[in-house]
């Protein structure tokens, strides 16, 4: 795996990008709890050149870069600059949760940049009757059970840092809190920031993946996307909560791989 830091936004926002694999470009945009390279990305790297950027501010060396961005428009432009710097004209975009919303915004802003779009439990809409749970207001001790169907799983331990080492635990608390803050900046207090006005611009073939037992963003939100994106398909994943790609990496990686391979440009 290679790692490099790319400065965008006139040099003021430094984004660290992890890249691995070969084949067509696939960009993965992570969710509110930061990026950890995981078996799901390993699996995708067998078929694609996977680029996984760390969201501005979530890299421990450059936490304050997030203050350079005032809103979603700034953020979308940053990612456009990032793709240019990566030399990626056109990619499969895969986004999870907050990253899913961001991927959809990018696909609406730059339809030509997005060959296909795979959204895993994306944010972006709001229903009064089925509210998205604000994980930033939950008791941190109970957060794992909201994110994962099985909060005791290995994947949950990787994300939340269940080890005995107090320093590692402190680092994990900081990483999670700042990750939620830096992504939360663009969605507080309700994660409906106008995607509904822009989503009609999405032309990329779209796949939606949802954990059947998502306790944060109920799977009914898939309807909001399928109603608005022609031909969008939905896969629900048994035995998974809000992070199906970490809970069932083999299953979700296969879904995404088959979808993205099928949508390969000639």
């Amino acid at each position: 795996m290679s790692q490099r830091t790319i400065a965008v936004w006139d040099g003021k926002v430094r984004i660290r990008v992890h890249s691995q694999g070969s084949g067509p470009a696939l960009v993965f945009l992570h969710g509110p709890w930061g990026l950890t390279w995981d078996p799901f990305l390993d699996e995708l790297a067998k078929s694609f050149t996977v680029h996984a950027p760390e969201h501005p501010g979530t890299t421990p060396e450059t936490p304050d870069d997030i203050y350079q961005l005032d809103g979603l428009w700034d953020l979308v432009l940053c990612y456009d600059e990032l793709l240019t710097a990566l030399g990626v004209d056109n990619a499969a975009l895969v986004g999870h949760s907050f990253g899913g919303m961001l991927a959809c915004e990018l696909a609406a802003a730059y339809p030509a940049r997005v060959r296909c779009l795979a959204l895993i439990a994306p944010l972006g809409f709001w229903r009064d009757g089925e509210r998205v749970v604000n994980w930033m207001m939950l008791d941190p001790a109970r957060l794992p059970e909201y994110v994962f169907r099985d909060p005791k799983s290995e994947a949950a331990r990787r994300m939340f840092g269940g080890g005995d080492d107090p320093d590692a635990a402190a680092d994990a608390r900081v990483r999670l809190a700042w990750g939620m803050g830096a992504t939360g900046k663009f969605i507080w207090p309700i994660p409906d920031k106008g995607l509904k006005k822009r989503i009609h611009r999405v032309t990329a073939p779209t796949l939606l993946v949802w954990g059947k037992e998502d306790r944060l963003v109920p799977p009914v939100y898939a309807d909001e996307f399928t109603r608005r994106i022609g031909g969008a398909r939905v896969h629900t994943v048994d035995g998974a909560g809000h992070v199906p790609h970490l809970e069932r990496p083999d299953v979700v990686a296969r879904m995404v791989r088959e979808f993205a391979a099928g949508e390969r440009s000639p």
Partner: protein
Amino acid sequence: MKISAFHLMPHRELPDDFEKRYESVWVTPPWWELADAERVGQYYNWTLDELLFAARAGFDGVCTNEHHQNAYGFMPSPNIMGAVLAKATNGTNVAIVQMGATLPTSNPPIRVAEEYAMLDCISGGRLVAGLPLGSAMDVNLCYGITPMEHRERYREAFALTLKAWQSRELFAWNGRYYQLANVNLWPRPIQQPHPPVWVPGSGSISTFDFAVDNDVCYCFLSYSGAKAAKTMMQGYWDVVAKKGRETNPYRAGFLQLVAVAESDAAAEAKYARHVEYFYHKCLHWPIQYLSPPGNQDYRSLVAAAKSNIRRAEDPKSLRYRDFVEKGYVIAGSAATVRDRIKEEVVKGLRVGNLMVLLQIGSMPHELTLENMDRFARDVLPSLRGEWNDEGWVNHWWPERLRGAAAPRAAAVAAAGS
């Protein structure tokens, strides 16, 4: 020194099992189950009557503050209360201490500058302008301000407020969060160049720097008492010294819960349940509400995560005698209260602007008046002369009230006896 009566305006009649039945006193408590507007109207009127009683009894100032969506203290607009107090205390030497209207929840924030200017005009220049950051519960959870923008918005609004009061000319404010092309405040405050500014805080280190850099009075609003505040306030004084400012005690304010009775035993009999009500019910909220992700800056977050978790004591496990012993509340006979305030608060923290909370939790109106009266008669006079020997000027008090000791009004002396 200056001694002001602070009021939260709490719900005084929450059910006995409140903290078991409901998840929080703040943000989410259901109004329709817990409150009644007619009764709440009575609370507001008691609150005003109590503060006016304090004003007539000889306190130097009366304090109100802003909070939202809670049963702990619900004056969403402290300036409405302040307006009543300003009008009703005209002709006295009592300061109207707004602690105060919260800038990030006021949009545009010059609304606060305008209302404070009104209060200063109505009161004849007796305003103390508290400019709080606001709690995360109020600003982020109730008023929807993004946690990561909270402090930046506050600092921009603070600078705008100071400029709006003082500018001799109409100006344009082209800020990051606020854009106003024609700032030209009507009215302007009587006090020149502007009313004294107090910045309340809860011990955040970045607020120390801010307070000293802006030369304001930093007020530590703590419910854990002076003993627990010692390290924190020392941190503030260290910043004052490091930045080369004089260690004028009037640069610091502190809020202390106080209950006075005929004797220590009588204080327990009278006040124990109200003190426990306050700590068990009025401060009942999920800990994470205090700091949603992004509200603390990165350095503070790292410091908090790495500090060998100085686990805050859970007040729900404490009873009246614990609260008194640990100094959360200073309670007892007038002599006990006077000695402890002098020792723990005035000397211990080097505080020149003292605020005392005398209506505590469920404390009923009559008992509140008794507490205020006992404090004003038997405690306050012996505190007022503190710091006089050092000759400091209280730059953070309305200039025309600096020398004056408010006389005890005859009518109140009669009412309180």
